[in-house]
């Protein structure tokens, strides 16, 4: 099936209008020796029915777990039915970036509302239309801080997601900036004293994450004060966005930029993407931040309308002087987030509380197993780290029961031998947790 509607006669008529007798004449500019007759190694066409059958077969080769006890940057939450129905309106999903505002008011207003919700949730003043994902949002915030301050060092807490730090290092290497790791304290929070020692006048930004990769909630306010005292900026990331239903947002504790993964807001796990890079900031950075921004304005009759604004920051106007090269972002995922957050409303708090209840129940259950112990004695949201006698064996046991177990931290933190990072969301029932405990007994 190729979706081309021309009949043979249409093609003939069009060829004669153009003045050619064969399609091949249109490709005359391609040097003969580089022309191919056929794409090699791509299978022949399939009917729609065959396509579906082939694709179902591939999907079925995945084994869907009965239970997922890993979060670590991607979170299994319930998605209300309205989200899918509204995001699947094809007026939204078959549109391009809203360059022509008059026929794009739908997506423009939806993004304006999303920006407002994100600013309120993160305790900041402004938010952009989205970045690729939490990791790239964090990396771009760091690069921006370095550019604005003419300083070349970024300090990042080791308790920040390891893949986010890897992305940060890639972006900083490309720009010639140095990344300095700040260790975590026995509490699982960033080590304040060690951080202070590393803070010199070459540091553009300090990055922490709260809840951090260990699930631990960071104490942002004192970090923000220390960072600002040295003339640097604080970039605060978050892991699971639903934590903002109860936690004090980093923007309210002094962070200059709040970034994170918005997947939790109405976007499926999707084996890692597409996800939603949340990017929020203090208002004073509005003319420097990367990405699309939707602004309210009026038409010539004074009627409210929305446009892409402050585009002089962007690549299509400023080219090499742009604040970033980002163009397409994750608008549809942001739309899903807007619908999700509007659907939940004040119930986001209730949902976050439910996550805490489940998490505490799972944690207490696991701590009742012989040889298991808590690693970080700090408040957590819906993830926590435990040490057990044999982490690999635990996950193997769970895997055999069709359960995705905890994240093995030793991969990224050699010192955290036999520790597992678990996550419990509202998707896990008491019965599930009891079963997990009985499997591991």
């Amino acid at each position, binding site marked *: 099936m190729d979706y081309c509607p021309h009949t043979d006669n249409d093609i003939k008529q069009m060829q004669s209008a153009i003045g050619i007798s064969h399609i091949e004449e249109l490709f005359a500019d391609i040097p003969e020796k580089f022309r191919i007759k056929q794409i090699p190694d791509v299978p022949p066409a399939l009917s729609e029915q065959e396509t579906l059958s082939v694709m179902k077969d591939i999907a079925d080769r995945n084994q869907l777990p009965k239970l997922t006890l890993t979060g670590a940057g991607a979170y299994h939450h319930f998605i209300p039915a309205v989200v899918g129905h509204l995001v699947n309106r094809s007026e939204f999903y078959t549109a391009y970036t809203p360059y022509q505002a008059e026929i794009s008011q739908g997506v423009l207003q939806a993004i304006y509302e999303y920006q407002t919700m994100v600013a309120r949730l993160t305790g900041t003043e402004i938010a952009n239309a989205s970045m690729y994902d939490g990791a790239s949002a964090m990396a771009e915030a760091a690069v921006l801080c370095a550019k604005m301050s003419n300083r070349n060092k970024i300090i990042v807490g080791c308790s920040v997601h390891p893949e986010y730090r890897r992305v940060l290092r890639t972006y900083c290497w490309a720009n010639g900036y140095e990344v300095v790791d700040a260790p975590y304290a026995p509490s699982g929070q960033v080590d304040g004293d060690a951080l202070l020692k590393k803070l010199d006048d070459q540091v553009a930004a300090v990055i922490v994450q709260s809840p951090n990769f260990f699930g631990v909630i960071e104490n942002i306010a004192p970090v923000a004060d220390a960072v600002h005292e040295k003339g640097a900026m604080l970039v605060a990331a978050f892991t699971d966005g639903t934590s903002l239903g109860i936690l004090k947002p980093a923007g309210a504790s002094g962070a200059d930029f709040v970034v994170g993964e918005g997947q939790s807001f109405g976007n499926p796990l999707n084996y890692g993407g597409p996800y939603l890079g949340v990017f929020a900031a203090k208002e004073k950075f509005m003319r420097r931040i990367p990405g699309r921004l939707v602004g309210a304005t009026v038409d010539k009759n004074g009627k409210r309308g929305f446009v892409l604004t402050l585009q002089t920051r962007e690549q299509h106007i400023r*080219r090499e002087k742009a604040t970033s090269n980002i163009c397409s972002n994750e608008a549809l995922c942001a739309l899903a987030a807007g619908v999700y957050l509007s659907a939940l409303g004040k119930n986001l708090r209730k949902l976050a509380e439910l996550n805490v209840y489940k998490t505490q129940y799972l944690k207490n259950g696991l701590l009742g197993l012989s040889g298991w112990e808590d690693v970080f004695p700090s408040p957590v949201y819906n993830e926590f780290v435990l040490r057990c006698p044999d982490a690999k064996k635990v996950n193997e046991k769970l895997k055999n029961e069709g359960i995705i177990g905890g994240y093995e931290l030793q991969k990224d933190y050699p010192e955290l031998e036999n520790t597992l990072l678990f996550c419990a969301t509202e998707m896990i029932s008491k019965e599930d947790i009891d079963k997990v405990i009985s499997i591991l007994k």
Partner: protein
Amino acid sequence: MELIFEISKPGRVAADVPASDVPPVNIENTIGSKYLRDELDLPEVAEIDLVRHYTNLSRRNFGVDLGFYPLGSCTMKYNPKINENVAALFGFTGLHPYADEKFAQGNLQLIYEMQKYLCAIFGMAEFTLQPAAGAHGELTGVMMIKKYFEKKGQNRRIILIPDAAHGTNPASGALCGFDTVELRSNSEGGVDIEHLESLMTEDVAALMLTNPNTLGLFERNIEKVAAIIHGKGGLLYGDGANANAFMGKTRPGDLGFDVIQLNLHKTFSTPHGGGGPGSGPVGVSQTLVDFLPVPRIIKKDSGCDWSENHLTNRDGETSYLPLPHIILKDSTYAWSSDFPHTIGRVRAFYGNFNVVVKAYTYIRSLGAEGLKHATEMAVLNANYIKERLKSYFDLPYDRVCMHECVFSGNRQVAESGVHTSDIAKRLIDYGYHPPTIYFPLIVPEAMMIEPTETESKETLDTFCDAMIAIAKEAKENPDAVHNAPVTTPVSRLDEVLAARKPDVCWKKS
């Protein structure tokens, strides 16, 4: 239309939360009050309000499903519905990215095969699917170029960018710390070879070339361009934004490109979502394979095995092969980060996987022949529009075009003061999405029209009729064009006000 905040009423809610089946804990004691937020200021609406709000918003939005969308360089082809159905299969949406590879063999196979198909279509040695969009792919490609020279111990500072290039090209170069130098186009709309020769030194890391370029013209001197770049040890970067112009006709790898990024949301029919998610795979020649982002997918053939089973042929008869015989056991796929020269990661996890599922479905539906046919019809459609409109609008480069054609509104400006932006807005009143305008920058009052292959002759004809009618209106009744659009929920918006007094987050007044 009211904002969701303006229809909000305290006490309403659309989504409920189940009662807890585990004992609740005291949140203040468990988390600590200093970590807790006070207010949570989100909209409060009933489900019906929510559905009507967003449904009404959708009615104020134009997509491919509503009408012709000839937005040049964006390849707004039809997004087949089967792709959406496949991508929504729970087998593809339901898996956590850190699920053990044993759980994810279907996903891994799809990623592996997608990379192989892209290698075959574009003639590259290897692909990565990690970048989330085209510009992200560009950044990834330029990073690999930087790493390549770093490993060779060469400090090349410059990237050459043609004056017709997309803005993302110089921005991607700059985001990797390169200086960008502009390369002129010649009178035919191609690379000015003499200028290229004068700029090409051993300080130049790469040329970022879009081929066909943003005028929709194929670079006839591509072999010479590649030779000049490679002759000084530089690399040739291909911006694959216009890949819909050559699938099945030629391959960038054969043309001498060392690295190319694609846009699955253009060439491979995945919907653009009103500004993403896209997907920006990057293909490399053997020269750059070592620098690809990690993790990379590897296939482990578990080798051959002896089978005691009878084989049956197509007629259901038992075959006469002696037992036991050799069968190829299933392959397994795994992620590996063990590549010491990699640039690292450019995002978390593995890329916009669910977008890749749609593109893979598209490739399987069309097959090798269908992809080639799509390209042929896309090029036919663009040339047809070019022929039908060229006596009404200035055509700065009158050559056979590829998948898009670029006109100038100069004649209308001179005759009646009607600008390209006016023509674009008037097209909206005729029921069309306007073309890309004022780009490429080297064409004054540019109108870049990309019809794609999925549009019928009737659609192209009525669009051309509308363009011709607007050209006539511009002469006879320019005010009608200046005042457009008149059929939309809002008329032209004050962009200057939006930028001067930015209001990007709503505040209760």
